[in-house]
């Protein structure tokens, strides 16, 4: 089987995978990073969103082998272990932006990506940007509020 090597949450990892092994399968089943979820497996729901080289991608629609040499960040790597949570994670907690939590890791990773690309975006823009992240509990209102707050906190941190 082919070799794969990449950086995941700042740590160099290597192993062997099948050609068809999806990035999300590699993260969950080989590295046991089960914070990244699989909701649909058809690129629609966004539960599997991670960052590859700084950009949000759907890890169910990327092969592990495509990440050769890349830096991958999952929800586990957003804040270092033992350190305070990332501002976006704090905002999701404060604004009650989750109920069952299944979509949450993907939502948070997407939210961080939105804030990095667009800064303090307005609500309508955030709703549009969440087109590829599905939540079946919250009705999105609190998620949008959390992203507005999280983006503001990220901007304040940058200053």
């Amino acid at each position, binding site marked *: 089987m*082919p070799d794969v090597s990449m950086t995941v949450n700042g740590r160099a990892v290597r192993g062997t995978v*099948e*050609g*068809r092994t*999806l990035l999300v399968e590699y993260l969950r089943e080989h590295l046991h990073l089960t914070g990244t979820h699989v909701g649909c*497996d*058809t*690129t*629609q729901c*966004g539960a599997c*969103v991670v960052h590859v080289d700084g*950009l*949000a*991608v*759907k890890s169910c*629609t*990327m*092969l592990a*082998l*495509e990440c*050769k040499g890349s830096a991958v960040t999952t929800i586990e790597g957003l804040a270092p272990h033992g350190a305070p949570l990332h501002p976006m994670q704090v905002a999701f907690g404060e604004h009650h932006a989750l109920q069952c939590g299944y979509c949450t890791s993907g939502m948070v990773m*997407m939210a961080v*990506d*939105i804030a990095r*690309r*667009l800064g303090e975006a307005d609500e309508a*823009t955030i709703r*549009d*940007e969440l*087109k*590829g*992240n599905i939540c079946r509990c919250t009705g999105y209102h609190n998620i949008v509020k959390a992203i507005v707050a999280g983006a503001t906190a990220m901007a304040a941190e940058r200053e």
Partner: protein
Amino acid sequence: MRDFDYHWASSLDEARRLGAEEGAAFLAGGQTLLRDLKHHRRTPTSLVKISGVLPREIDLRDGGITIGAGATHAEIAVSEVVRERLPALAGLAGHIGDPAVRHRATLGGAVVAHEVAGDYPPACLALGATVHTTDRDLAAAEFFAGPGRTALEPGEIVTAVTFPVPAKAAYVKFLNPAARYAMAGVFVALAADGRPRLAVAAARADGAFRWREAEAALAATFVGDALREVRMPLDGLAEDLFADAAYRGRLAEVLARRAVSLANGAAPGVAVFSHGSPLRVGVAR
């Protein structure tokens, strides 16, 4: 998904050689191909990863914008030159799929996939684009050969697409309420030489097509009302649980008028409609 051999091409020549082998398929951003592999719609025995060897530059020269096949939708959507000179195309790219998909999906992959509901095929047809491959240059009308098919030979790779900069252009689409791809989309362009071209996506089962009757009406006057009496022939229109042929035809007629009005407006670009209200009007960020 069936397993396959995986090759990371280190040059276009190597990619052509590996891709010409029996059972091989090229992998760019993978946002269409991986779906097809999961559904066993395609069962290649080897994948040749070409993202690393595809050009991705965006250049304005000789009245056209040439975009490397490896450029992602996200890169095209935020390109200054595309936003300034061809805002309809920037807006189109910025409304394909969702942000995570746009970070991976490429222009080359999208034109080669040639999906019936794809957004780039009508843009290529209406703008009179040229598709550049490792072997030749093809007019868009020659390149697209029925849904999911193109004129590409085994081992031949799309390297770039040139879009002539029009005097005016706009793209308007109406989204499927569930999957959010276009149920119908209309790209209209008034070429620099004054010729109107109008292409329709997702309406016909056999792929995007130029609507010649609408073009003839627009040649007289390039205003939305010029299309008021032009009817979309129902023959060959796609039908599914979301829209029968009559509804889709009517949708295309309405979208065509709106596209022309948008192209004539102060901020031409893209408009995306869904059941109820416009989602987004204007150029994507």
